[in-house]
């Protein structure tokens, strides 16, 4: 099918695989469905291969020995990623990826064990609090979505001063509605860095991109948003 994009190359979005990653395939598929070229990146390779954005997918990096994301944060690819994120590269961490971004201090706070002590898996309603990030511009402020959530250590915590700052600066990206599934402080489902290029999200938008396999397609705008950002940046 001829398309408007045929004259320019598609944006390339890298998806990092750590030992224990399990949603990297879904994340690459979501990237492709959004219209970009998925690029598989390996944790042991410190080269980002010129990608335009990076997704750290869900899973259990290195089995999450010690703490979730604590060891993955020191993977060779993270050295390049941390530097590139500082220069504005859009980075999305989903679930375990969110934990890795917190451990890498690209995002404030930390994720701890669910307050009810059980693994949780549900179709979660949440509110997208801000469209002013690289990964949420395809939504409107306050838009409600349903996206699958599955985690054992998904409770977002930070000290009160940090939480107040995140709220004050409009850096709470998503907030749980109806049920707080893991005891997250102030029902926080996702946050971003000051520049808005780095986003961490506990629910899994890559599992809500196709009606056949997900409860909704509400996750697709996440992956489409970053393409809009990349087109704007290159224009």
């Amino acid at each position: 099918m001829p398309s408007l994009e045929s004259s320019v190359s598609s944006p390339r979005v890298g998806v990092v695989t750590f030992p224990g990653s399990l949603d990297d395939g879904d994340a690459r598929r979501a990237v492709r469905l959004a219209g970009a070229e998925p690029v598989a990146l390996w944790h042991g390779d410190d080269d980002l291969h010129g990608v335009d954005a990076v997704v750290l997918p869900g899973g259990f990096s290195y089995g999450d020995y010690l703490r979730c994301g604590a060891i993955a944060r020191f993977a060779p690819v993270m050295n390049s990623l941390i530097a590139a994120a500082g220069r504005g590269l859009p980075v999305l961490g989903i679930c375990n990826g969110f934990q890795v971004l917190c451990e890498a201090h690209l995002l404030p706070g930390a994720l701890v064990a669910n307050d009810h002590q059980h693994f949780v898996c549900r179709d979660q309603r949440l509110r997208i609090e801000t469209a002013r990030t690289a990964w949420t511009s395809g939504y409107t402020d306050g838009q409600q979505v349903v996206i699958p959530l599955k985690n054992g250590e998904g409770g977002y915590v930070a000290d009160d001063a940090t939480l107040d700052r995140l709220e004050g600066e409009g850096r709470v990206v998503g907030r749980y509605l109806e049920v707080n599934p893991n005891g997250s402080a102030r029902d926080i489902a996702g946050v971003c860095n000051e520049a808005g290029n780095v986003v961490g999200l506990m629910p899994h938008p890559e599992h809500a991109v196709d009606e056949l396999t997900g409860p909704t397609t509400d996750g697709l705008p996440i992956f489409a948003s970053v393409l809009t950002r990349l087109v704007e940046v290159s224009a």
Partner: protein
Amino acid sequence: MARVVVDVMLKPELLDPQGQAIAKALERLGHAGVTSVRQGKRFELEVEGEADAAALERVRGIADTLLANPVIEDFTVRAEP
């Protein structure tokens, strides 16, 4: 060789579900009188040379960057005689 011990504990204001699960299990097993349990981690590091001030400082750096997450955990470092 000297041994340096690093104890890591979740900050007191944070809920410790593992500790709570253990406390509940104690109750089920009939151990009365335990009002609270919190679970931490202990690391034992064998280091070359003596556990002098410089070695302890080095281990403190290790604890601060890898063994503990200072956002949610406190840690102590000490030489084991």
